[in-house]
């Protein structure tokens, strides 16, 4: 009895379908590698080696951290396309401060935080105070940051000269082959934090309310404008953390260090079940989405797929994952028809007005 209850709870979980996709893809990659690449020798399957697993986790953590705050923003009905270029701008800016201005790692990090939060607040102010779409405003900021990046770097890399390694290159060796990198620890910790905020605080409930029905949220006493502003401020904090990790890992401020990140992040969030219209989504879905995308890249690499084809296959898999989520959500609302009838009656009565 208890078992069947738990089972129902598991199958009804909103992240079930994306989790299944994850499992299917993991199995598919293992099988493909086992049969096609390793000549049926299970001990040689690189994909499931502990070292590879810890590498995948490390590779996804920067995208993952950005995806966490993007989840906030997208549940509230907004979007931010500027995050990738902001990372380029702030990351190269930090490298510049460390190398040329020589103000040291900690002050540089603090300055980076002020800059990301500051710019995000400016953008948030514009988005929340006007009726402009966050899509187009953040697209504008994307271009601004691109420009700043080139003004700082002139298109060249700026090395940090071996400084600023703590965030990206600290490892915890759990076993001989499996080590947990600092970025992974930060990513998981932040995921738990965001989960807690979304589930157990008024702040979290308001994120959903603002995205679900802005008018009703306003009338329920939520200062929608300031709330949106706050969300972009928080986004700035997460971008700062992600940028520092990226810079620390690379050891150099590369003008392309965040290139295309926004697409990766938005794809992960949407694959994780957050809808673009807002009001729906959750952080574990995002977590799985991030893993899924990372695993697909890693798996295709191990299988030795031509990198150009990897783009194609990744795209196909993303569309597949999103379609599956869509289909399962359709099935979940099987009472849809009934509600439509109710609505029809309500509207036809309203027509008499």
């Amino acid at each position: 009895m208890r078992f069947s209850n738990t089972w129902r709870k598991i199958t009804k979980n909103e992240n079930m379908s994306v989790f299944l996709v994850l499992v299917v893809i993991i199995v598919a990659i293992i099988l493909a590698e086992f049969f096609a690449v390793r000549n049926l020798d299970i001990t040689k399957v690189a994909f499931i080696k502990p070292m590879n697993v810890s590498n995948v986790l490390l590779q996804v953590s920067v995208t993952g951290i950005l995806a966490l705050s993007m989840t906030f923003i997208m549940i509230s009905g907004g979007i931010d396309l500027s995050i990738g270029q902001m990372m380029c701008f702030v990351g190269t800016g930090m490298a510049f401060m460390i190398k040329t201005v020589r103000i040291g790692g900690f002050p540089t990090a603090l300055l980076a935080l002020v800059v990301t939060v500051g710019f995000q607040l400016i953008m948030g102010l514009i988005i929340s105070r006007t009726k402009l779409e966050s899509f187009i405003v953040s697209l504008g900021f994307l271009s601004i940051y691109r420009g700043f990046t080139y003004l700082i770097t002139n298109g060249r890399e700026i090395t940090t000269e071996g400084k600023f390694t703590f965030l990206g290159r600290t490892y915890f060796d759990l076993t001989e082959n499996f080590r947990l990198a600092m970025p992974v620890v930060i990513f998981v910790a932040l995921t738990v934090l965001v989960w807690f905020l979304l589930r157990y605080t008024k702040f979290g409930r308001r994120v959903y309310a603002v995205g679900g029905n802005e008018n009703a949220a306003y009338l329920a006493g939520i200062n929608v404008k300031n709330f949106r502003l706050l969300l972009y401020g928080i986004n700035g904090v997460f971008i700062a953390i992600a940028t520092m990790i990226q810079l620390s890992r690379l050891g150099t401020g590369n003008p392309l260090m965040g290139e295309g990140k926004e697409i990766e992040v938005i794809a992960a969030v949407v694959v994780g079940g957050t809808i673009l219209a807002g009001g729906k989504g959750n952080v574990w879905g995002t977590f799985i989405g991030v893993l899924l995308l990372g695993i697909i890249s890693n798996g295709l690499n191990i299988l030795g797929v031509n990198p150009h084809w990897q783009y194609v296959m990744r795209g196909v898999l993303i569309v597949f994952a999103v379609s599956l989520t869509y289909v399962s959500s359709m099935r979940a609302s099987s009472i849809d028809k009934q509600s439509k009838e109710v609505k029809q009656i309500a509207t036809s009565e309203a027509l008499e007005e």
Partner: protein
Amino acid sequence: MPEKLILEMKNIHKAFPGVEVFKNFKFDLKEGEIHCIVGENGAGKSTLIKMFSGAHTPDKGEIYLDGELVKIANPRTAMAMGIQTIYQEHTLFPYLSVVENLFAGNEMVNGIILNRNEMIQKTNEVLEYLHSQIDPLDIVGQLGSGEQKTVEIARGLVQDSRVIILDEPTSSFSQTEIDHLLTVIKKLAANGISIIYISHHLEEVFKIAERVTVIRDGISISTYGSQEITEQKLINDMVGRDVSLFYKRPAVPIGKVLFEVKDLSGNGVEHASFSVHAGELVGIAGMVGSGRTELAEILFGAKPAESGEIHIGQKKVDIRSPFSAISNRMCYITEDRQDTGLFLQHTLDKNIPIATYSKTSTPMALPSEDIKLSEKYIKTLKIKTPSVLQQAMFLSGGNQQKVVLAKWFATNADIFIFDEPTRGIDVGSKEEIYKIIVELLQNQKAVVMISSDMPELIAMSDKVMVMRGGRMVAEIKKDEISEENILKHSIGGSI
């Protein structure tokens, strides 16, 4: 006037799921005649227009055009027959010019090239005929609402309309705009175009009508020629429901003044003053567009007030946002529950506690507490739902409305503002909502109820304030509340 009938309706029946709107309806329109239609909110005026314009088709009955039986299946056939409908809200393309609007879907062409000059010339002719100063190349969205109405009429003329139907054309018009429009309408009629004119404003009706038909509950009650029209006759015909069918609410002792509004202006409302005692229900009556919802919005801080004071208990309060309204123990149940009340895709335990968050200072919102709170209100308000984890969109209209009520009851408010609390819900749920409201009164809450539903206003109110053109034009005491009295003030011939 030639006495030729151009349009005629006979034995029209029309029902919507659950309600019969039109029974045995008849109506006729002569060539070159201005025929006005009056009736209360919800009498069926809009549905009638929609049957002429092809937006609705009658379930039974005949429509004759020039004595021939016709079927108006959709708006396109109506237009082809020369019936042009000008709806209350604008139906123009705001980013296009006047010419483009006039000929949209009906452009003059040379082969495949638009014949722009000819269209502009034709537009000029029509505008001149209407004595209008509008330039054919003006962008419609930049014109005033009076001018936009003129453009809509011009569109009808360009398309050789024989019948023009105007639904409440003058809402949001200034007096000069109204006068201009009425002159234009008279001119059209003199040239043989037939006009159906629907208005809440009896003074306009008196000025232009050749005949007036009063409709009530989908029945044509009477038709008068221009000589016979009097305000008294029209109002008598518009009212007349069977009082014994009204909900009977128990009396509740009325306490001290709890909520007082002094000379409040802003958001289209001018100098509104009224007070509500504990245990008292004050009804706000008025036609659609008279400023009732606008009043509620400034009371609740959703729109800014320009001047005036609000007192709660003995204290003057400053309400600048819904948040401060909630902190002052107010709540506002809006007229459109789907648009401004509910989070449709969210479950009930996410819908019901949301407003309580504005009252407590803890940052936490524990799911278990939210579920407990929601279940409590699902039980007390008898919300029919399979579980607290049901999404709001899957509930019926009546139950959705109860979810909105639960959301506000959970805040422990003292002052309740209802805007059309029972619109679009079935009779059974209506009564349940009335019972819930009476319970509030018994608990010595103050209730303000905006309603277009006359029986509801009359049965529930201890006092009715009537609004008109953004002002409170009358205060009707308990024993003087009647449909007739309310109507007289809300549409009467003189202010």
